[in-house]
């Protein structure tokens, strides 16, 4: 399941929905990305996320399908917000559920790494010096590469 929305999400409620009535799940991993009040030493008063409607849905679905093909997941969810957010607010939620912990952890990391480098979102941070578009980080590209070289974890 993927969702792209302006409004906030409730992590606890999303976990409850995903596991509801299930007794075959042994491990649930969640990742929540939140707005920090500083970046590169600068204060941030708010942040705006622009995205590419149409392509975002397609990319998130593609990323989720890849994770589902690679790990035995009992459920997964990606919610990504767009619009203006203040420090402390939620930006993104990833949930993965599996029989065993390694699959759930790896799938969640995989989803986040792909999301960071493939999903068409752009961050603009507003601080005392005005707005600045956030530069992509090389470390995010590096994070992605490990999934290309690594053996399938679920095997």
């Amino acid at each position, binding site marked *: 399941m993927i969702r792209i929305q302006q409004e906030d999400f409730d992590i606890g409620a999303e976990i409850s929905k995903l596991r509801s009535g299930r007794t075959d799940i042994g491990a649930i991993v969640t990742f929540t*990305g939140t707005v920090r009040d500083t970046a590169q030493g600068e204060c941030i008063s708010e942040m705006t*996320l*622009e*995205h*590419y409607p*149409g*392509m975002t849905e*397609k*990319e998130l679905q593609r990323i989720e399908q890849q994770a589902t093909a690679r790990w035995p997941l009992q459920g997964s969810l990606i919610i*990504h917000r767009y619009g203006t957010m203040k420090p402390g607010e939620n*930006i*993104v939620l990833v949930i993965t559920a599996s029989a065993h912990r390694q699959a759930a952890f790896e799938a969640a990391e995989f989803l*986040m790494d792909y*999301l*960071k*480098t*493939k*999903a*068409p*979102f*752009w*961050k*603009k941070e507003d601080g005392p010096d005005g707005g600045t*578009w*956030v*530069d*992509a*980080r090389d470390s995010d590209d590096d994070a992605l590469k490990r999934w290309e070289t690594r053996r399938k974890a679920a095997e």
Partner: protein
Amino acid sequence: MSVKLLYFAWVREKTGLGEETVDLPGSVQTVSDLMAWLKARGPEYEAAFDKSDFIRAAIDHTHVTHSTSIDKAREIAFFPPVTGG
């Protein structure tokens, strides 16, 4: 060929528009050709596509490289490397 162009983040801010539809001459074959063609359209475009190496593109909602052919493209988007999550 008539194609819809979309611009995001600082590419959008520099061109000054989010989308437009253009008629392309037959000489414009690849994403790279298109960026060069756009750059010649005026100072806003020149500024937007100045560092074209840093710009990413998508054709019909799929990431492509600069050498990808734009043949049959309906919608081409230009944007900086993504920074979501």
